[in-house]
């Protein structure tokens, strides 16, 4: 680990200012610090300043006030809310169960207690070639994606490369199907140190729908998201989706990265599905929307298992499995079907005594 300065901004504007401060060449943001510490230990990041956002709240909120709120049909989650607080929030559990369920499955309780909403979204991929200090992969400026001819069991089955990571967060796919919007702020002016303190007037704000937050590797392999330099996520908003559900397939049930996840929001017309939005995780470099499955689920009664399975089977269209991950073609429809049943309030009983 190299030596670095630790900066403790009071506001997102100050944080943004630090990111563009010319005194520093490699600033990094820290939420809970989970992913950052992994990077520091492996020597993947050598920042000269770590900007600690952990205690930063949105402008104008009273200290101690809830960081998850609901107003005008929108749910708002502040960037530095911990995953545990999201999981335990009555608002989230009732209005967006898919998000609560997904984050309940993330990492371990210890990690969830410190990991943050924004950090979860912006964590770098867990690809073991990217994470290994000894493999100079495309993401680190090298010329090879080692996964293509190497150990790709946990890699993507969708996308044309050139990098085959899977998106790591458990929360982004949920926001994708709940009209999620990431709100970002950046310092608006030229930086000279004395300016800090006028942050509110100098703040530029921007809203990015989740569908535009992440990009595929062919649009830039060194990064995964479309935030511009100096931009900091301040909060996330999304629309309630009470009929929603999540299902994950993991090798280990304690503290493991999923092999495949599915996120489903349903709207019913009587017993039949009126509309559906489906997103899959751990199968593509970004949260993987499945509009064809959305379409195929329309008009189906969840009781009609044959029809349901047929609709879910559409999910693998266009998949290009690698040497060791074709098994995900079997997992994906099964995972979506389970998530649909959970969203419909009819979970399949997979627990046996």
């Amino acid at each position, binding site marked *: *680990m*190299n030596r670095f300065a630790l900066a403790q901004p009071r506001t997102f504007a100050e944080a943004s200012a630090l990111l563009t401060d010319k005194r520093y060449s490699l600033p990094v943001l820290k939420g809970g610090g989970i992913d950052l510490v992994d990077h520091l230990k492996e*020597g993947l990041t050598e920042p000269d300043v770590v900007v600690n956002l952990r205690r930063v709240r949105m402008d104008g909120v009273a200290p101690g006030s809830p960081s998850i709120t609901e107003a005008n049909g929108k749910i708002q989650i502040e960037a530095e809310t911990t995953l545990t607080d999201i999981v335990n929030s009555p608002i989230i559990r009732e209005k967006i169960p898919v998000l609560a369920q997904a984050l309940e499955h993330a990492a371990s309780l210890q990690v969830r207690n410190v990991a943050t909403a924004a950090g979860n979204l912006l964590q770098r991929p867990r690809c*073991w*070639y990217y994470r*290994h*200090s*000894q*493999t100079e992969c495309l993401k680190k400026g090298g010329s090879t994606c*080692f996964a293509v*001819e*190497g*150990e790709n*069991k946990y890699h993507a089955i969708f996308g044309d490369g050139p990098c085959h990571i899977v998106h790591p967060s458990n929360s982004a796919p949920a926001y994708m199907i709940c009209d999620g919007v990431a709100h970002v702020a950046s310092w608006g002016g030229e930086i000279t140190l004395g300016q800090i303190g006028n942050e509110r007037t100098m703040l530029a704000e921007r809203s990015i729908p989740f569908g535009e937050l992440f990009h595929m590797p062919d649009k830039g392999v060194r990064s995964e998201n479309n935030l511009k330099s100096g931009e900091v996520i301040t909060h996330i908003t999304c629309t309630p989706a009470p009929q929603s559900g999540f299902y994950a*397939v*993991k*090798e*280990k*049930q*304690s*503290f*493991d990265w999923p*092999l495949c996840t599915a996120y489903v929001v349903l709207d019913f017309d009587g017993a039949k599905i009126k509309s559906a939005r489906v997103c899959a995780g751990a199968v593509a470099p970004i949260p993987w929307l499945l509009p064809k499955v959305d379409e195929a689920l329309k008009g189906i009664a969840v009781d009609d298992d044959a029809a349901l399975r047929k609709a879910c089977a559409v999910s693998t269209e266009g998949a290009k499995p690698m040497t*060791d*991950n074709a*098994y995900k073609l*079997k*997992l994906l429809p*099964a*995972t979506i079907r*389970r998530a649909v049943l959970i969203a419909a309030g009819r979970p*399949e*009983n*997979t627990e*046996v*005594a």
Partner: protein
Amino acid sequence: MYDQTPSDMPTTTRPANAGSSLNDNASRLDGPAKASGRAKYGRDMYLKDALYVGFVRCPYGAAVLKDANTDAAKSIPGVLEVDVPLGKEGKYHGHKMGEVVAESPLAVKRALRALKCTWEKKPVKTRITDTVTELPEPGEKTAEHFKSAELTLEAVYTTPVQPHSCLETHGGAVEWTDDKAIAYASTQGTSSVRDGIDKHLNRPQSEIEVVCEYIGGGFGSKLGGPGKELTSAATAASKYKRSAYMFDSRSEDQTDTGMRPSSQTLARIAFKKDGTILGGEIRTWGGTGVAGGGGGCNVPSGRYKLGVSKPRDGHKDVTHNGGGPMPARAPGWPQGAFAEELMVDEIAALCNMDPLVFKRKLASEDVYRDMLDMGAKMIGWENRKPNGSQTTAVRIGYGIGTASWHGTGPGGSAEVAIHPDGSVEARTGTQDPGTGTRTMAGIAAASALGVPLSVVTVRIGHSTLPKGPGSGGSQVTGQIAPTMMNAAEHAKEQLLAIVAKAAGATGDDATKGFDIKDGVITRNGKPHLEWKQACEKLPPEGITARNKGELDPGKGGNQGVQFVKLSVDTETGVVRPLHVVAIQSCGKVIFRKGAESQVIGSVIQGFSNALFERQVFDRNIGTVMNDNLEWYKILGPVDMPKIETVLWTHGQTGVRGIGEPPIVATSGAVACAIFNAVGRPVRDLPMTPDRILTAMASAPTGGAKS
């Protein structure tokens, strides 16, 4: 003493294993120290003004070190020494190439990074099948049997490389002073460290102490001398006349501290429809990394009368670009047992036989049949459905595994001291790698002396103590329990002689009628003196007694049977462990909770072997991709089955260790349970969802001749 009449077997009307041991209620003596962090491990020994050593290691399966920025590394403040042999070829990821010595751990890391080594990669082999590209032809007799048999099975079973993954990584620290050097080693062999380290410290053995009070796991990888880490620390200490420290990082521990070799087992068995085995052959291969040997795979084990043997040239060790093996908890046995148990179940399935009936029939000893009967009741075997007969998405599977182990020979020494204040010390130079040795030794001393465990302080893990055995081969309890009891009995004789004399008894049989029970000195069965009052009569130096001669731990073997119940989600391939009944014998039990914990720990590790553990080598560059505990997966809390242990004492004599035997049974039992649930065998460890789904989609194998 230790060969006292065993207790009855536990029944459902009283707690399991009650009355099975010398001390049913004792908890680990070091539990509070370990749980509170008060216990200091070797890795915790950050000594004043110490130097730190770091290794330059090959990051690929095979690569030549072409260049390194030595000047940049030397210019880092605090760096004393940079030794990088240009032109040397690394043969595996983690292979030690050179060294850095510096004033702080940070300086070591920065120097290693500043080197920016340039490597020329070479082609690698990472699997047994990279070398063994085709299977040998069957022998003449096997070919004959295959022509005439009603049914045949030809199957290949494989297990992967499994590093030991000790929680406390390998290494040691040396405290250097003018009058002595103290080596704080994380070792399974305190005495072997002193014998191996003197020439590196360049001091006489009389000036060297080895201390190993606590070890965070070993599993066999911390046997055999000081290891390369402590050796390097000792060399630096000697050179600079300063304390020195070298402990591996997690990645280094996962790649270069020994491993359980991979294995491949080929079984060709010919049999009749009624399960009568006509003949066949079993061949095995061991994947030993860069080492030329040590890859044994113990099948056939002799626990089943198979009538099939391994030809004389039936085992071959195969090298690959990985670190070499170190003994891993029952070296070679679980690999063989996995193949054997599943193979036997596959034969049973082809004959439409219940594997319980078949394994009962094949069992080589009656004790296995008795254990099978007991375990079948406890797990609820009657609820087992025939292989592959379930149609629900989530299916239940039941499986059986068996275990055996070789006995224990005599060895080790011990000393018991009684102080005039009534406190007792039980001393032996062996060590406790988390197995419960410390508590076992205390119980042995207390019970032979006739005092409560609370008055006994156990001193272990120090080279100045009477030499104890290395923690390997499950030998320690078998050696130290009788030895410690013998020392305690000698101490007791001396104490009783003093008490008798004070009571006016004289002559050769002065102590006749005197005894010690529950901390009270009795005479002719009646209370005579409190323990403390008796000890007040001792001379100021108290009593110190050693064991006399080598104590035979008694005859007998370890047998075990495990039943596993689990569920398999056939749409996702996910396995959920549900229930394990683990029956294990180890002679007379000394420390009940400790023995149970060894069985429980074996089941957990065996289940991890079965479901998750695999060293993942990149097939092109040979780098270990899961050199961490994030992707090197082991069973976590949510994955734990209910584990019931039975310490089988019926007919048991002698005393034996229980560290290794129970792990032999587990992975095979899990494989059989998965086979039962899904109707297809998964012949490769770990049995991960992808492999289960693939096996389910495969055609049935073996079977009737056309």
